[in-house]
């Protein structure tokens, strides 16, 4: 037990070395930290961050599963696209999500593209169909972290963010090539899916 300055309590407090676990999807990273006895705050140090990344990258299975809801139109599009690339639906969704988070979201034109996807004439392609179907999408540690950051920034639930990514990418694949300013990124997405399909 040691007396140290706690930045949250803004005074000297008792700190004890405790075993803690940091939630990572359905897993928990076990570590030790000096925890303030009064407010339970602790420091996330560079060493802890590195160890947590190493731990997370050690999982060969997914660390979390989300269940986005797909309407029948999107589901049908997904099935068609998956068949075109000889993929199952879930691996296809992971490929689309990866492209969305790494390429589409980081593009300077992201806001403009979002507006296009929400336009009535584009929207109608993916927002019709009443029946909704759940799809289980397991993510590895990297996927969990990337999606987590997106959700934190946009203040949206993970399953909703996946639904948005699927809907956007389906629109882009099916109709983007006919819009001159979207043609390039639509072709990039198509090439990415084709390449990833070989590895899937």
């Amino acid at each position, binding site marked *: 037990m040691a007396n140290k300055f706690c930045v949250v309590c803004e005074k000297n407090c008792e700190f004890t070395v405790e075993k803690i676990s940091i939630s990572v999807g359905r897993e928990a990273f076990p570590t030790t930290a000096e925890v303030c006895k009064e*407010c339970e705050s602790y420091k996330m140090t560079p060493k802890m961050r590195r160890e947590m990344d190493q731990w997370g990258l050690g999982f060969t299975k997914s660390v979390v599963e989300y269940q986005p809801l797909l309407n029948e139109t999107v589901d049908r599009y997904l099935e068609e696209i998956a068949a075109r690339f000889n993929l199952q639906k879930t691996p296809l969704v992971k490929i689309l999500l990866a492209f969305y988070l790494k390429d589409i979201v980081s593009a300077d034109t992201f806001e403009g593209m979002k507006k296009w996807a929400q336009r009535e004439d584009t929207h109608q392609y993916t927002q019709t169909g009443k029946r909704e179907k759940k799809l289980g999408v397991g993510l590895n540690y990297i996927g969990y972290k990337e999606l987590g950051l997106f959700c934190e*920034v946009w203040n949206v639930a993970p399953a909703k963010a996946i639904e948005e990514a699927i809907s956007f990418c389906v629109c882009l694949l099916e109709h983007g090539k006919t819009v001159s300013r979207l043609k390039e990124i639509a072709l990039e997405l198509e090439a990415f899916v084709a390449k990833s399909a070989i590895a899937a």
Partner: protein
Amino acid sequence: MALTDSEFSAAFLKEATPLGKIKLAIREERYNIWIRKNKPNVSEEYLLPVLELPDGHDVRVKRRSSGGQGSDCVYVMQYSALIMGKKIVVYLKAYFEKDDGSVIGLEVQSLRNTQLTLVEDN
């Protein structure tokens, strides 16, 4: 190659501006982010855009009213960052940790997305 504690402390003293000192700590990965239950901090990705800020970016340096271990001053700043396609304004409040008189790293007290939370003022 990462700097040793004494090399970091020397480099810290050489930096002429508060922003330069903060950038040094981030570049050298010498920052601790406090995980707190009240007013939770956001993740480290919000801290990294500081490295891209121009030298003249405003950093308020205030005397730490609470005292305690570390530097006498607390550094407070706000900056715009494009994270995951969204332009947000980040609030940062931090001070430097000392060990035996040497400066060893940045202690991040508050790291917030101002669009989601009201920032504290002092």
